[in-house]
């Protein structure tokens, strides 16, 4: 391998699969006994191939990936074989394993900000792998290591690599950091890269760039990639072959095109059906006028300004900058944007969790500028809030029944029996059995907890519901059910809702009216299907074009369109 230079054609690596996993089993020791995370997995990766391992949380996909690099914790035992160029990773010595890592197989992590050490320059970190793997018995000199690092940065498309090789990680943006991580993985020119959710922590527009880069690396250098992801859009965009995992077993294995066109197993069919697909199942399909135009206006923002104070001497950070919008009774307003766009801040400001700094925000007729908790409190019963992480938004020491009853106890004077009855009604409305009132939050699954969270927010029949990324912590199949429930309940109760999400497809499924935020400014708003189908603003166009759809053929066409948009 060492004589393989960067110009080596994919064919030069030929001769059997790069990675060959046979009957891999991984068991973890936990307090609750043994957990068999991977039950029996066999798969091969051919040279120059992108193999995607998909599955929901708990399917064993990440454990499988970590086994490839021998990164399992001490509490795990594994059996079977994981062959990388003839070496069985499970049984080799620690010294041999160290040589395999980096030279034959490298890893790209999920969160680029934590995968890089903040106190060293990126050049140093890329060269670290080179120093660790002395070739021909001698380590590369300082100058040589630097040249190699510059070369690696150039390969992954970092502009001005000669200068930026001396930068520290914090001087790069999130997407560039992930490029640096990929550069470090490529430094020794390994035949195989294991990418564990490489784009999950990134925004859609950045994700599109990283996927482009990974595809480019495969085409140019013939590197095989094992892509671990839960995002079917990413799979459709990049993968040649797909392995679907469920509860530690391989459910289905097929070329990407065939898997999406004709899934064989029930689980795969269910999984694919649950993935939201932009442009299908839109809540506002065929709508030509705003639904709530004649209804009472519940929330009205005019030139809304929200700043977070800076440190002494430095100016504050303007999270929301001159945003104007209104939410009418009975309407679902979808607010989309990437991280840092200010969408969550707006939701929190409406609920009185964040103070506004300027402009005007009227919530149920109450002016939030100069807001006082005491005078706002009576209005709180008309506002429900659903938080992003259902696990964290319940007090772990209170039962679900107590949590759901809390708003009732605070705002209404009812007998304990009638409170219990109301809780049972609410749980029934969100399709949870009434016995669940006795359970504690950790005894429920993520989807059930989010249902309970919805029940709590509806406890007082609010006029307005604020949902802050309510499904982004859930698996796709669970997300689909929660979204359906949300839609049904909204139709039944008729409350107005502000639905905040980064996921365009999810917003489109629920919202009548959609606003797109970019760096604190509302760049476009309109009827959901029109914004998604025919965006006017340049940023909205780019955002929608970067979103991968779960269909390889459609995605290939979209990719071309995206390239044309970014290039031109």
């Amino acid at each position, binding site marked *: 391998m060492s004589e393989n230079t960067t110009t080596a054609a994919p064919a030069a690596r030929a001769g059997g699969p790069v990675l060959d996993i046979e009957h891999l089993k991984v068991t973890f020791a936990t307090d609750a006994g043994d957990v068999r995370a991977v039950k029996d997995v066999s798969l091969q990766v051919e040279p120059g191939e992108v193999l995607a391992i998909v599955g929901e949380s708990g399917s064993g996909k990440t454990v499988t990936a970590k086994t490839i690099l021998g990164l399992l914790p001490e*509490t795990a035992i594994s059996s079977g074989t994981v062959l990388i160029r003839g070496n069985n990773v499970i049984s080799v010595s620690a010294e041999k394993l160290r040589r395999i890592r980096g030279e034959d197989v490298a890893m790209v992590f999920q969160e680029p900000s934590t995968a890089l050490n903040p106190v060293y320059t990126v050049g140093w970190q890329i060269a670290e792998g080179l120093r660790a793997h002395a070739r021909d018995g001698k380590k590369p000199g300082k100058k040589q290591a630097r040249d190699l690092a510059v070369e690696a940065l150039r390969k992954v498309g970092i502009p001005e690599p000669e200068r930026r090789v001396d930068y520290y990680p914090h001087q790069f943006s999130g997407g560039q950091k992930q490029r640096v991580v990929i550069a470090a993985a490529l430094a020794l020119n390994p035949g195989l890269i294991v990418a564990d959710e490489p784009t999950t922590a990134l925004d859609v527009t950045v994700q599109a760039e990283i996927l482009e880069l990974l595809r480019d690396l495969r085409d140019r250098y013939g590197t095989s990639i094992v892509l671990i992801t839960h995002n079917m859009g990413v799979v459709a965009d990049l993968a040649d072959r797909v392995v679907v995992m469920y509860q530690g077993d391989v459910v289905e294995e097929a070329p990407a095109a065939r898997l999406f066109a004709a899934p064989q197993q029930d689980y795969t069919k269910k999984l694919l059906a649950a993935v939201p697909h932009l442009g299908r199942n839109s809540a506002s399909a065929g709508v030509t006028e705003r639904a709530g135009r004649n209804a009472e206006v519940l929330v009205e923002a005019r030139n809304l300004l929200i700043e977070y104070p800076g440190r002494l001497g430095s100016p504050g950070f303007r999270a929301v900058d001159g945003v104007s919008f209104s939410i009418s009774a009975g309407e679902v307003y979808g607010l989309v944007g990437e991280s840092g766009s200010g969408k969550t801040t707006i939701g929190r400001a409406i609920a009185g969790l964040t103070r506004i700094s300027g402009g005007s925000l009227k919530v149920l007729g109450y002016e939030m500028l100069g807001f006082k908790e005491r005078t706002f409190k009576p209005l709180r019963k008309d506002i429900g809030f659903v938080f992003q992480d259902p696990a964290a938004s319940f007090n772990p020491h209170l039962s679900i029944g107590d949590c759901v009853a809390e708003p009732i106890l605070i705002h209404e004077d009812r007998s304990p029996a009638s409170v219990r009855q109301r809780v049972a009604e609410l749980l029934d409305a969100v399709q949870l059995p009434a016995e669940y009132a006795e359970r504690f939050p950790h005894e429920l699954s993520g989807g059930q907890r989010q249902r309970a969270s919805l029940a709590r927010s509806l406890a007082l029949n609010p006029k307005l519901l604020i949902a802050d990324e309510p499904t982004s912590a859930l698996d796709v199949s669970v997300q689909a059910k929660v979204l359906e429930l949300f839609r049904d309940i909204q139709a039944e109760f008729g409350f107005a809702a502000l639905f905040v999400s980064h996921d365009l497809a999810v917003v489109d499924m629920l919202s009548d009216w959609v606003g797109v935020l970019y760096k604190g400014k509302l760049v476009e708003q309109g009827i959901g299907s029109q914004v998604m189908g025919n965006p006017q603003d340049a940023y909205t166009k780019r955002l929608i074009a970067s979103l991968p759809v779960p269909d390889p053929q459609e995605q290939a066409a979209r990719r071309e369109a995206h390239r044309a948009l970014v290039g031109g």
Partner: protein
Amino acid sequence: MAKQSLIGRLPVISHLNKSVGLQRGMLITGLVLSGLFILTAIFGPLIAPYSFNQIGDANGNFPAQAAPGGTHLWGTTVGGYDVFSRVVWGAQTALEVIVVAVIMSIFIGVALGLLSGYLGGWLDRILVVVADAIYAFPTLLLAIVMSIVISRGQSSLWGGIFSAAISITVVFIPQYFRVIRAETIRLKAEPFVESAKVVGASNLRIMSRHIYKNATRTLPLIFTLNASEAIQTLAALGFLGFGIEPTSAAEWGFDLNKALADATAGIWWTGIFPGAAIALTVLGLTLVGESMNDLNDPRLRGRRRAGSAQKPGAQKGGPAVQAPQPAADAEARNQA
């Protein structure tokens, strides 16, 4: 996962259940030593043959500095006290001081920590400065000053115990304050506290219902670690002569002080026994505290090797988990 019984979820017992190997050994040693200490303290009057201030019986005065054996199991001191009885009675004094000191510091520390962390602002700043100032004092010196102020040189049984306990309390309050305040500040930003705020819960309700229980999870741990520190402080006070007079109660530190002169004269029994009592009690409590600390942290906790539960005779886990884990479990693991 089957719901554990209430007993199985109590702090020390749940720790014992999930420990293995060396950690289990350490915890059990600590529990045995601490248990012995507590039992001795409770049943001291029944165990000890004589009273702590008894220097004679029907047969006249006890011999001074008698070697161990005969009627005086561990010998007698220069003042004619029975060493064994003094050591047994001393356990009672030590336990009383620990209980009073730790309970007072827990109540005050937790209340101040909650208020300071949740309300923030000027109250928080002042309390933190005061706590830091107390931290900055050498603890023993502070305890000495406090004991002089409180007892005013007089030394009755409860006067002595309270002066020792309060001086320890003053030193410990900042520790509880700091821990609870840090937890409160962390919890304040948790979504479940925000969700209580959104539904309009009052500050008092949020503090008492949502933060208090979640913030006090680490208390059993600090309790055991502080208990051993309390004994050391008490012994040091007694050793330096600020403790309790021998006529009011038995006190290990005081006995050690009186045994100083004996040590060079070859009279070992007056010093060894109270000294060993201090060392073993502190060791026991520290072992319990340290093992609990390790067991609370999943990264430090040792586990049985995976697969070993399949062997017959394994105590915990029973048969290997064959059935698929409930969805809730799998999900919770992944979100963690």
